[in-house]
């Protein structure tokens, strides 16, 4: 059984079938891609998985545990995190503070809300900022960073939380093309060395083909195809979906 099991999930928004009978499975320790033309329901699926909204039908299991009924903070605490397509960071705080607050806080008792932030966390935060190349900008306000830089910060923040699995929503969108190779390397490193399972939404085919061991393709809210990068690349349905042939 995979670390993430999505089973026959349906999600409607009024009359719109955003996700229809979606089933997929992600093996622990792998990198899996989620592709599909715009509007195919990829981000909706992410939202469903982490609990941003309830699903209408189906089941979502993380490490064997049903998570579709759980509130977002609880799911996050279980080790399932996601990044956002339109970056979400804490604009008025500086990068270091963004990192510090992202650390997973173990709550012990009533007064733990007033715990002071341990010094060691600062080192960890700086290390991770270096990892994504933002060390020099660590004292700047997060809101002043460019879109691409905010994306990197978001990645660093997620890593700070030491998740078991990370859902990445278009991690290279808006990133300077010269940096994309560096990002690919780092994501592979994150997967191999930190042991984090990755499920990645991507539009950049080059990126996803080099990253993923398995790819799922959505179209019009339904699962269109699944397979290895090679299989997907040559899958007629996938090609048609992207080129709009209907």
């Amino acid at each position: 059984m995979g670390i993430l099991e999505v089973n026959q999930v349906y999600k409607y928004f009024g009359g719109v079938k955003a996700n229809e009978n979606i089933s997929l499975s992600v093996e622990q320790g792998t990198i899996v891609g989620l592709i599909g033309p715009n509007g195919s329901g990829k981000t909706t699926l992410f939202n469903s998985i982490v609990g941003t909204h309830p699903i209408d039908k189906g089941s979502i299991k993380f490490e064997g545990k049903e998570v579709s009924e759980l509130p977002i903070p609880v799911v996050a605490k279980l080790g399932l995190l996601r990044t956002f397509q339109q970056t979400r960071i804490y604009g008025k705080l500086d990068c270091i503070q963004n990192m510090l607050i992202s650390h997973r806080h173990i709550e012990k008792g009533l007064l733990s809300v007033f715990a002071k932030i341990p010094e060691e966390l600062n080192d960890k935060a700086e290390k991770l900022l270096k990892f994504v190349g933002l060390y020099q900008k660590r004292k700047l306000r997060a809101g002043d960073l460019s879109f691409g830089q905010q994306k990197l910060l978001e990645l660093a923040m997620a890593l700070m939380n030491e998740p078991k699995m990370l859902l990445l929503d278009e991690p290279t969108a808006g990133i300077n093309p010269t940096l994309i190779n560096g990002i690919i390397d780092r994501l592979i490193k994150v997967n191999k060395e930190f042991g984090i399972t990755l499920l990645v939404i991507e539009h950049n085919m080059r990126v996803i083909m080099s990253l993923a061991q398995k790819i799922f393709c959505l179209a019009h809210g339904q699962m269109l195809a699944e397979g290895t990068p090679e299989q997907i690349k040559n899958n007629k349905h996938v090609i048609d979906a992207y080129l709009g042939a209907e």
Partner: protein
Amino acid sequence: MSRNKLIGYGLLLVFGLVAPFLFPAFKLQISIMWLLVVLSLTWDTQGGQMGYNSFGNIMFFGIGMYVCSSFHIGMFFSLAEWTEGGGEKTFLHTSLQYFQGLSVGLILSGIVPAIVAALIGYGILGLRGHYFAICTLGLGIAMGEIASGIELIGAGQGMTTPPWPKGIGGVELRSQFYYYLCFALMVITFLFLRWVYQTRFGLVLNAIRDNEDKAEAMGIHTMRYKITGWVISAFFLGIAGGLMGNMIGYIEPTEIAFAGASYGVFMVLMAILGGKGTLWGPVIGAIVFHIFKEGFWIFFLGWQYVALGLLIVLIVVFFPEGIMGWLREKFPERFGEVIDEADRKAQVELE
């Protein structure tokens, strides 16, 4: 702490301690000023630090005021009879009774509002943005209206607070006594909040302000922090209310206790004027505002509220970052904001 800061704190402490002797005619005014600092600081915990703009924090102030005097009186006499008199007080506290009652009253005036905040927090703090603002506005005013209808605490007429006991000094001692209580409350509130903002708690509040959804998505149980923050504010606000009631000598439901249209709005204004989201902003804002207000009363008597309303509009429209915000723009280095141009322009490099 840097030398400058220590000197600054020291000066303020000294000023606060000797003020009643330097400006004996203004004791009451300065006492109120310290209470305004408490009002503005506690508002900022929700408004500036957490991004939840409450127009109803005054309800804790009012509850505290009523609780303090109700117990102060009720411990020794019949509250109903006291308020029925409407001014004819035939009850007099002995010195011991007065201070016993006041101590109990003040402690409860902090605890009861805190409990109220804890109880309604889950419902009310689930609202966001303008809904939270207007809901709290409604709550604050509703409480004033409800208090106006309860006979036991004097209904629309309100009630007088216990007079200073005979035999232990007169007006001088009384005003000095309350002055130091107000100053002490302000100092305690300030130090407590200063400590809190340096812990993870403070950072969580800021995270909630900047992006509540992100905070939740990162595993923070935001509701716990929201409620805790409100409870803290309610506690200090309640005690401030208790003190204010005793200093004025008279509690009236809609103008003095649940003064939604005056102090309820002032606390928002003071924090914004000084710079919301900072520690010193609300303090400076409260002091400056108080000076303005007293000035308006003297120079614009009859039109002081109009002037005050105009001030609100002017601040909101032209000066929303407040004094601290303006200072930050002018002297960023003083605030630890190291804007190294090289850093700012640097491209991200991944080797």
